[in-house]
Structures are given as C-alpha cells and as structure tokens.
C-alpha cells in the first residue's frame, strides 16, 4: 500500500467514525436534557442512563477518530471545539426534544437503526471499530426494548397519548431516510469491509418499525419525500444545542475538575 492510499483511507475512516460518534453524542445530549424533567422518576433515571450510554459510546468512536486523524485531537477536542458545520450527525438526532412522545418515537427510530447497524459493524474488518460496536450492540438491545415498549404503551394508550405518538411519527418520518442513504464514503467503507451496508440496515429497520407501529395501533406514514443533507448540513437547532453543550469547555479551555 502506498503512502497516499493510506492517508486517503484514514481520512475516510476519520469521517466515518465522526458520523458514528456525532449521532450518539448529539442524541445523548438531547436525552440528557430530560434529566430532572422526566414524567416520572423511573423514566427520568432511564433516559439519563441511556444518555450516558450514548455519550460513552460517542467517546469511544471520537477517541478512535482522533487517533485515526493523527493531529493530536482527542474526544473532548472533537466534541467541544468543532463548529456546527463540522458535525456529521443525521438531522433527526439534533431536533429539540419535544414532548415525551416525540423523544420516545425518535429514540425508537434511532435504536432500531443503531441495533441493525451495530449488528453489521461488530463484524467489521477494523478490529477496534468492531470491538466498540460489539460493546454498544449489547447496550442498544435494552435501549430498543425500552423505547419500543413505550411506543406501544403510548400508541395503544389513551386518546391523548395516541394522538401525540402519531404526531411524533408523522413529524419525524421525513428525517428517517437519511439514516439509510449511503454516500460515496459509506459505499467505500462498506467495500473495504469496514462499514455497514446501509440499504440492508434500512430494510430491517422498516420491518421492525412496521411491526412495532402496528402493535402500537399507529399508522405508518405513506411514502413521502425524505429530507437529505444531514451529515453535511444541519437544521437551525444544532447551533443552539452546541452553544449550550460547548460553552463550559470553551470558556475555560483545558480546565479539569
């Protein structure tokens, strides 16, 4: 392998790891906003626990991304000192947390995606990535159990909870396509045996989502246009979220406690 191939390969891997890290970092931060605001104590604790898992997973992907980049950036530098345009998450995870139904439906959509994605990544030819994915895969199993359970309770619950859950499904649906639309980086990472086959993940995602929404007496939205542009661009909401998430680290660079 020549030197130039190696650096192109690692630039691609860096980009791919940022996507994995940023999805989990941003969603973990959104979930952490529920801490102290959960509808019941047990749920407050559950959402904070899941947020902690996601931020922990993000730490591992971003640390590996920093090592891959080789410019001395660690996970904290990547989380706190990048600008919004440099974040590579899908737009769905950055939307404001909304009501409990919105948070739960989004979590279910993401968990179902993450479950099938990590199931593939734990067989990645990149040993460290495979190890991190295997760890997260164990965690996403109980995340998915929790969110799918709630989707069924809300959908098949009261008139109010049903209406709110259906509205969340309808509002979020157009953001879901991004998760399964591969670009050239996804395709090359898949061809190298490092990354996942996103259309295959999407197929399994649709099957589990149809199943759960059906049991929840919620309707699956008709085929509609899907938003694109995530991983490269963002909604107006990410900047506001990052301002809050990054301010302490930026106001006191290098501080430790």
């Amino acid at each position, binding site marked *: 392998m020549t030197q130039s191939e190696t650096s192109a390969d690692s630039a691609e891997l860096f980009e791919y790891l940022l996507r994995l890290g940023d999805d989990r970092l941003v969603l973990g931060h959104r979930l952490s906003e529920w801490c102290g605001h959960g509808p019941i104590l047990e749920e407050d*604790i559950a959402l904070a626990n899941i947020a*902690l898992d996601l931020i922990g997973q993000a730490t591992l992907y971003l640390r590996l991304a920093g090592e891959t980049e080789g410019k001395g950036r660690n996970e904290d530098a990547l989380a706190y000192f990048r600008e919004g345009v440099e974040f590579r998450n899908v737009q769905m995870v950055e939307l404001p947390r909304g009501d409990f139904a919105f948070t739960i439906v989004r979590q279910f959509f993401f968990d179902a995606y993450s479950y*099938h994605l990590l199931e593939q990544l734990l067989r990645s030819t990149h040993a460290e990535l495979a190890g991190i994915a295997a760890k997260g895969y164990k965690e996403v199993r109980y995340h998915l159990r929790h969110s799918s*359970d709630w989707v069924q309770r809300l959908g098949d619950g009261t008139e109010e909870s049903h209406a709110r859950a259906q509205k969340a499904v309808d509002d979020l649906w157009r953001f879901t396509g991004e998760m399964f639309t591969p670009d050239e980086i996804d395709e090359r990472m898949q061809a190298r045996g490092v990354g996942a086959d996103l259309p295959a993940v999407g197929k399994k995602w649709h099957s589990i989502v149809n199943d759960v929404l059906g049991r929840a007496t919620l309707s699956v939205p008709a085929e509609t246009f899907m938003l694109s542009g995530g991983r490269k661009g963002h909604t107006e909401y990410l900047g506001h979220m990052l301002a809050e998430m990054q301010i302490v680290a930026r106001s006191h660079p290098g501080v430790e406690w």
Partner: protein
Amino acid sequence: MTKTIATKEEVLEILAEVKDPELPVIDIVELGIVRDVVFDGGRVRIDVTPTYSGCPAMEVIERDIVTTLNSHGFSNVAVRSVFSPPWTTDWISASTKEKLRAYGIAPPSGASKAGTAEELVTIRRGRPAVECPYCGSSNTEEKSEFGSTACKAIHYCNSCHQPFDYFKSF
C-alpha cells in the same frame, strides 16, 4: 524502589485491592474487567475492559490501578482499554455473586442472552422473578430496568416490602 520482576499472579493479587467505587465489596478482578497483565521491559501493562461504554467509574478505576501498583513498587504502569470480547456478567463467579447478595444487591441471575430484534420489541410479561437479597422471597417485581448506575435495575420485594437493586444480567 522500582519493581520489575513479578508474576502475573502477583500483580492480580495486588489488583484485588482495587475496588469498584460503585460496589465497594467486590474488586476489579472479581468483576472480570481485568483482561490481561503484560510485562514489557520495565513496564507492566494492565488491559481492562469497561462494563458499560459510559461507566463513569472507569476513570477512577484506571487511576486506582496506577496508584495501587505504584504503592507496591511498580513505577511504570500503563492501563489499556480493550473492547473485545465485550464484558459480560457471566464472568462474575458464584462466590462474588454471594458477596453482592450479602451487600444487599441481587446478583445477576441466569446467563446473559442476546435475543432477536423481534423478541426485544415484544412487551415482556411474566419474566422470572429475581430473588430478594434480604429475605430470599421470589415474590418480587421489577420497578424499572434502569437504576442508580448503568449496571443495576430497581426491584421491589412484595414479601418484606423492601426495594432493592438488581445487578442486571448483561
């Protein structure tokens, strides 16, 4: 004093002094997170694996490993995180589970199971009850799968009316 000659067993014995800060009755060797001890020239490297990706105790544990080995004369200590194979509660021995029970935490019951996506999204009913660590009753129920730390769930005993932590099978 710099200690360079030691056996793996000797180092593991020292590491048994490092407790899990969240579970001070069990040490990190019993918990199964110490995966290897490697001697490399004058350095000793400890491979550890996290229990959960976001476990905040890991940082404390890594620091405690270094200071404990330092105090036993190992001046050059490195801690490396390894992720494969992922940690499982199946690595916790029967005698360690007894220690958890005596401390008031119901130990993991049964082996960690994967389950298919279809099983995961099916609302669970009538799951096997966890035995109450206080009175031994099986008339208990899960209040929440999420508890005070990532590794624990909240249960309640209907016999002695005591809420208790369950160390989840994972």
